[in-house]
Every structure is written in C-alpha cells, then in structure tokens.
C-alpha cells in the first residue's frame, strides 16, 4: 500500500512539474499565435500578417543568405569536428581535456570580442564572404557539436572498429565515412541539429559583422508592424521545428535500419 501511495505521490509531483513546464512553454506560444492571427481587433482573425511577411522586400534574399550560411556552417562543422573528435578518441586521448576547455571558450568569450576577433584573425579573402559568418557559426556551435559527438563516441570500441576497417583495406577517409559516421549517426545528427538551430536564429554576430541575414531582417521589419513581427516570430519558430522534425525523421530512418530485427 505504501509503495502504491509513494508511486501515486511521485507521479502527481512529476505530472504537476510537467504541466507547469508545458504551461510556461506553450501559453506564450498560443498567445503569440493568436495575436499574430488578429485582423483589426481581438475578434477577427485572418492570415493577413503572414501575407504581409512575404510582401516585405528582402524576405527571400535574407532567408537565402541564412540558409546558405547555415548549410555551410553545418558542412564545415562536421568536416572539422568528426575527424577531430575521432582522432581524440583513437589516439589523442591526452589532449581531450585541453580540447574540452577550448570548446567551452565560445560560451565564455563575449560575442563582441568574437566578432572583433573574427575581423582581425580571419584571412582577408574570407572577409565579406559567406564563409566569414559560417566560420563564426562553426565556432559558436563548437561547444554543442563537440559534446554531441564526444558522447556518441564514448563507450564505443572505436579503436577496434578502426583497426578492423583499416585491416580490411579501408583508407582513413573510408574509415570516417563508412564506419565512424554511421556508427555514431545519432550524434552526428544531434551536432547537425544544434548547428542548424543556432545558425538559423543567430542575430548578434550577424549584426556586429554587418551581415543582413534572416534574423537581422526580422529585427528590422518588425519595427514597423507589431502584428507582422509576431507572425514572423511564430512563423520562423514553427518552420525551424518543421525543419528539425524533418531531419529527425530522415535521421531515425537511417539509424533504425541498424536495429532491424530479422
């Protein structure tokens, strides 16, 4: 009896916490969605504010820039991080602590300093190219992507897999592409998610480096129309969710095949 009452009281507590958390997460969202759909007053609703977004100049161009920067940041991030973390796990164990500290730095260094650093440290041929911002996004996504990949590789006998693959005739590139990456696919996907989410919504660095991206555009156009601004926020939030769900679906399809029971 005591056990059951314990279970019930524990359950009540966890359900309450969940409900409170859900309330804080969804209520503003529901409120914002409702507000963005208002048409002239609280009683009339339409998609006018959403239509307004598409009518603003620069929507497509800025969204395009953000997508380009995001895609490049994701590719660069994975190209740099997957081999690096693999190496740290296979033969660079003694450098792991150091790398862990280094990957934390983007969280500690103020964005203003990062932006100034970027302008002085990046080679001049990268200035004002999409790569400038992409590189910076790789840097600020590093704390998250490093940890996602590190967790994925920890506890896996990577050394044995690498030795087996090398022994069977796989070059290092093949080892990375055909053995390591599929082995830690959920972690690769997580690193990808985090980089995408971060790049899509990043505002400060873009603004400081004088880039016009989707978030900076949103900030500019929303000065004029409060309903439009809310519609933009709600719209970008749901689009980002949709995109991430898409990745999850695509990713889990791939990982599920390894758990396929005969």
């Amino acid at each position: 009896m005591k056990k059951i009452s314990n279970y019930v009281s524990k359950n009540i507590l966890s359900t309450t916490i969940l409900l409170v958390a859900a309330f804080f997460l969804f209520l503003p969202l529901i409120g914002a969605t409702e507000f963005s759909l208002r048409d002239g007053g609280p009683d009339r609703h339409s998609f006018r504010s959403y239509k307004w977004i598409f009518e603003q100049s620069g929507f497509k161009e800025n969204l395009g820039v953000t997508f380009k920067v995001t895609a490049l940041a994701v590719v660069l991030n994975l190209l740099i991080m997957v081999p690096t973390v693999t190496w740290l796990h296979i033969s660079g164990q003694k450098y792991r602590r150091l790398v862990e500290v280094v990957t934390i730095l983007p969280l500690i260094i103020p964005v203003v300093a990062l932006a100034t650093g970027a302008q002085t440290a990046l080679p001049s041929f990268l200035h004002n190219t999409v790569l400038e911002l992409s590189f910076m996004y790789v840097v600020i996504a590093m704390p998250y992507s490093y940890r996602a990949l590190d967790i994925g590789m920890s506890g896996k006998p990577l050394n044995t897999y690498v030795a087996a693959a090398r022994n069977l005739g796989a070059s290092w590139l093949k080892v990375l592409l055909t053995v390591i990456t599929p082995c830690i696919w959920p972690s690769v996907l997580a690193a990808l998610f985090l980089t995408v989410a971060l790049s899509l919504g990043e505002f400060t660095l873009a603004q400081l480096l004088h880039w016009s991206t989707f978030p900076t555009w949103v900030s500019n156009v929303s000065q004029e129309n409060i309903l439009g601004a809310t519609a933009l926020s709600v719209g970008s939030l749901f689009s980002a969710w949709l995109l991430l769900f898409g990745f999850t679906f695509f990713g889990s399809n791939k990982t599920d095949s390894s758990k396929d029971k005969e």
Partner: protein
Amino acid sequence: MTSTSLKVKGLGRQFGTVLALDNFSIEVPKGELISLLGPSGCGKTTALRIIAGLEKSDAGEVHLNEKNITNVSAHLRNMGMVFQAYSLFPHLNVSENVAFGLKMRKISRSERTKRVNKMLELVGLDHHHKRFAHQLSGGQQQRVALARALVIEPEVLLLDEPLSALDAQVRTNLREEIRRLQIELGTTTLFVTHDQEEAMAISDRVGVMNKGRLEQLDTPDVLYNRPTNDFVASFVGTMNHLPANLVNGTVEIFGKTLPTQKTGNETGKVNVLVRPESIQVTPSETSANATVVTRSFLGAASRVLCKTDDGTIIHSLITNSSSDSLHPGSKVKLEILSREVMVTNV
C-alpha cells in the same frame, strides 16, 4: 616445397619506459599456423599489430613474400585480422560486414555475393545473413569476424586472442574450426594467445614470448618435452623444479641417478625439470620420502601435491585408480619415471 610467407626481423618497440618488443624476429612459412604464446604484457599483441601495420615499430622490418612492407599502410597489406574484442560494425548486417573488405577492393556485387555466401557457409552461418551484431552470440560474432578476415583471401591471417571472450565450450569448438578452416584454405596464420592449451592444440609451431623476446619457437611436442630454458619450462604446462647437484652430467633424484642433457664432466648446483606425469607416487610406510598434501580430482586423472622431507612441493599427475589410497597426510614414495631428465643452471 613451402616458402616463407611472413618474415619479421628484429622488431623493437618501447612504450615510455616499458620495452614491449626487444629484437623480435620470426619467420612463418606459407600455410603454417604459428601461435605466439606468453603472459600478458609480453609483447605478443604489439608484435601482431606491428605486422598488421596498425602500430609503428621503433626498429626492425616486416617482409611479406620477400617484399619489405614495413612502411606500407595497414589498408594496403592484405592481411586479415580477428580481434579479441568484438569488432563487427554495428550498422552493417552479417553479409555487409563480411563484404566490407571486398567492397573496399572494388570487387563486383555478384562476385561479392558469391564469396560472402561461400564464406558464411564455411563458418556455418549461412542462415544469418541479415542479422546484426547485437542479434548474435559471442561465438557467432567471432565466426563472422573470421569470415570477414578470410573472405579477402589474405596473405596472412592474424588472430589476436579471438577466443578469450568466449565460454569454455564455444572456445574449444571454435578453435577446432579455426584450425579446420586454416588447413582447408591453406592460409598462413599467426595466432596470439595466452592460453597454452589453445596454442598447443591447434598450432604447427608455438613461439613462447617473454618480456618482448621470443624465448623458443618449436612444435608443441618439443616445447613441452624439451624446453630450452626455465621460463618456457614453467610457462608451458606444469613443471617441478627440483634442486640437485650435477655430477659428471648426471643427477641423483629420489635415490636414483639419472643422465641429463649435459655432457662431459660438468658439475654444480642445478634445477632438475620434471613434469608431473613423470613422477610416480606409491603409498609406502617404510621407504617413504614424502607426504601427500592435497589430492584434486581432475576427471581423467588426479593431481597430487606432495611435500618431500626437505620441504620441496612436488606436483604429480596420476591415474585415478592409483591415487585412490592417497589422502592428505599419507606417507608416499616418490620416483622419477623418465630415463633422462632436463636440468637448468641455478
């Protein structure tokens, strides 16, 4: 006529202050199975990894079919390897795992399927094509790993304690199977193990290693009966070390004078090496020279531990019928059955 397939010359490797390999040399003729046997940390796995190209050596050379491959990258050496840890790629099924090496060699899909099917049939897993590693037992996983290593038709098969994670029964079956396959396919094989029974059971020759050196390389029979030094004598099987005086190449043990491998008029203190099965234990009250300490039943025989009057512990292995009357505390007479004994200098 068999020619040498793998030749390793003077390998050396140091990890910090630990000398893992010290001037290690070995030659493996085509089609032969040689085991490297030794205690943990003796350098046997390091040697194997250097041969496979997975580890760099500080000194020495590796030759394959008369070609120096010391600096050839691991993926170009065409050697098959089975590891101690389960090494099947978790995202690939059995067929895909076995086909991995063939795919890397850009073998056509039809040829791949044919060779994978044949190899899985050979290791008795032809009904498990679509399974993943986590759906297989340890023994099955190692069979797949063996198939994966053999399907590429390697110049040399390297086995790094592939059986040590398995149950006793599976171990015995799989080791017989490895030997059957090795003979059937004629693959030159280097097998690393710390289990002497395993090494003796399936090898053409066994190399005993200690502290990074190859102490003795011989057939299991010679290794057991004529070890060249104390380490090999004690590491391979159980060996009694009895202190004695060498007089003109002979020693006196339990009142019997026996010739040794030493000739001429050598004298001095020596250790006489006697296997447990070469010692006869008979109950005796009058001419007893030892007392039984313990008797353990081993199935086909019994191991009897005796203490001589001077305090030396003697291991003996005798049939159950002759050990029936032996109990701890029984007075016994020990005798050497061999006509000649091995001695080593103290």
